C-alpha cells in the first residue's frame, strides 16, 4: 500500500479489536497496517487500521457483524 494513494482507516474501540480487524482483513487478502489514530480524526491515543480506499466497500462487508463496533473514515 503506497502512502500517496487515497487511504481510509478503520476506527475500533481498543487495540485488541484492531488486531482482530487486522486478522479479518489479512485473511481476506486486503493489505492493511496498524497506525496511530490521526489527530484530526480523534484525540484518542490508540491505533487504527489503515488500508487503500479502493477496498472501502469490501472492508465494510468483511467487518460488519463480526466486529462489535467500528467506523470507517476516509483520510
Amino acid at each position, binding site marked *: 500500500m503506497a502512502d500517496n494513494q487515497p487511504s481510509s482507516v478503520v476506527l475500533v*474501540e481498543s*487495540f*485488541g479489536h484492531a*488486531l482482530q480487524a487486522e486478522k479479518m482483513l489479512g485473511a481476506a487478502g486486503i493489505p492493511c497496517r496498524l497506525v*496511530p489514530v490521526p489527530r484530526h480524526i480523534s484525540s484518542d491515543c*490508540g491505533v487504527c487500521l489503515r488500508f487503500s480506499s479502493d477496498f472501502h466497500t469490501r472492508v465494510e462487508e468483511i467487518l460488519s457483524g463480526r466486529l*462489535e463496533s467500528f467506523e470507517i473514515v476516509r483520510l
Partner: protein
Amino acid sequence: MDAIYLDNAATSWPKPDAVIEAMIRHQRMVGGSPGRSGHRLSIEAGRAVYGVRETIARLFHIADPLRIVFTKNSTEALNIALLGLLKPGDHVVTTGMEHNSVMRPLRFLASHGVELTVVACSPRGDLDPGDIRRALRPNTRAVVLTHASNVTGTIMPVQEVAAIARERDIVTCVDAAQTAGVLPIDVEMMAIDLLAFTGHKSLFGPQGTGGLYIRKGLDDRISPLMRGGTGSRSEFEEQPDFMPDKYEAGTPNAPGLAGLAAGTAFVLAKGPERIHAREKALARRFLNHLEALDGDATIYGPRDMETRTSVVSFNLRDIVPSDAALFFDERFGILCRPGLHCAPAAHRTIGSFPQGTIRFSFGFFNTEAEVDLAAEAVVRLLQR
C-alpha cells in the same frame, strides 16, 4: 544438596526453558507499552499480549479472546468478580473448602450487606451438588467454588454445580488456581460464567500473571475494581465500558505475559491430560509410601486418583507441621509447605485446624527418585 521442590501448588518450579527465554526475548527485543503508543515496539508488545489471550482462549475453549481480562493472579481476578458483581441484599453461596482468595472477599462482602452461605463438605473435602441446590434462595446471585482444593486436591463437581446455577440464571464463578493446565476446562460445556486462573502454577508462567474470563453479557453487571489508563478512548475521563479495557487499567505485565504464553504453549503441546497423568502417578507413588506407614501418617483428602490432583496433605503422629518442614528442608533439601495454606475453612472441614498439615505438592518435573527420597525423609523423621 540439591533442592527437591514439592511446593508446586504454591508456585510451579522449575519453569520450562521456553518460558524464561520468552521473557528475556520480550525485554530485549520488544519492551514497548502494549497497545499504548502506536509505534512498532508498542504494536509488537500489543500483539504479544493479544497472542497470550488467544493461547489462553484455546486452552479454556473461549470463543472470543477479548473476554479474558489479565490480572496479576487468581486473587485479583476473584476480587474483580466478587466485589464487582455482588451488591448489598444479594445472596452468594460457596463451599467449606475455599482458599482465602475466595473466603476473604466474601467475608468482607458479608460485613457489607451481602448474605453468605458456606455449604459444608465432607471430611475428605467432597461437595454434594445437592447441598448447593438446597442453599439457593430467591436472591442468590452467584455460586463461587474452587475447581480443586489446594489443601486436599479434592476435585469439586463444578459442572454439576454450574448446571444447577444456570437453571436459575445464577452466576457460577470458578477458582481454577489449582487446575488450569492440569484438568480440562471448557467454559461453554461446563457452563462457567466467571473463571479465575493464575499463570504461576500449572500454566508454568511467572508470578504476577493470571486472569479472569467473563461470559459475554455479564460484564454489564460487574463494576471494575480499578480505573485508569487503557490506551483507548483517551479523550474521555470515564473508564471504557468494553472488554477487556474496562478491567485492565494501567500498563500490564507484558514480559510476564510473554512468559505465560510460552508456559501455556508448553501445556498445550504436552496436553493437560498427560501432565495430570504424570503428576497423579507421582502423588500415587508417595501415597503408597504413606499408606505403608501403618497409622503413623494421617492422610487427608480422597485416595482415588481420579477424584484428586497431585496435592498431598498429611500429618505424622503429633509432629508439628512446621517442625517437619524444617527437618525436611535442612536434612533432605525437600521444600514443602506446612500449616494452613491460606485455607482455614478447608482445614476446619478436614479436621486439621488450627495446626494444619504438611503439604507435598508434586509437579510435572518431579521424578520417582525424588518421591522415594521424600518418603525416606518421612520415615527418618518418624524414627528421630
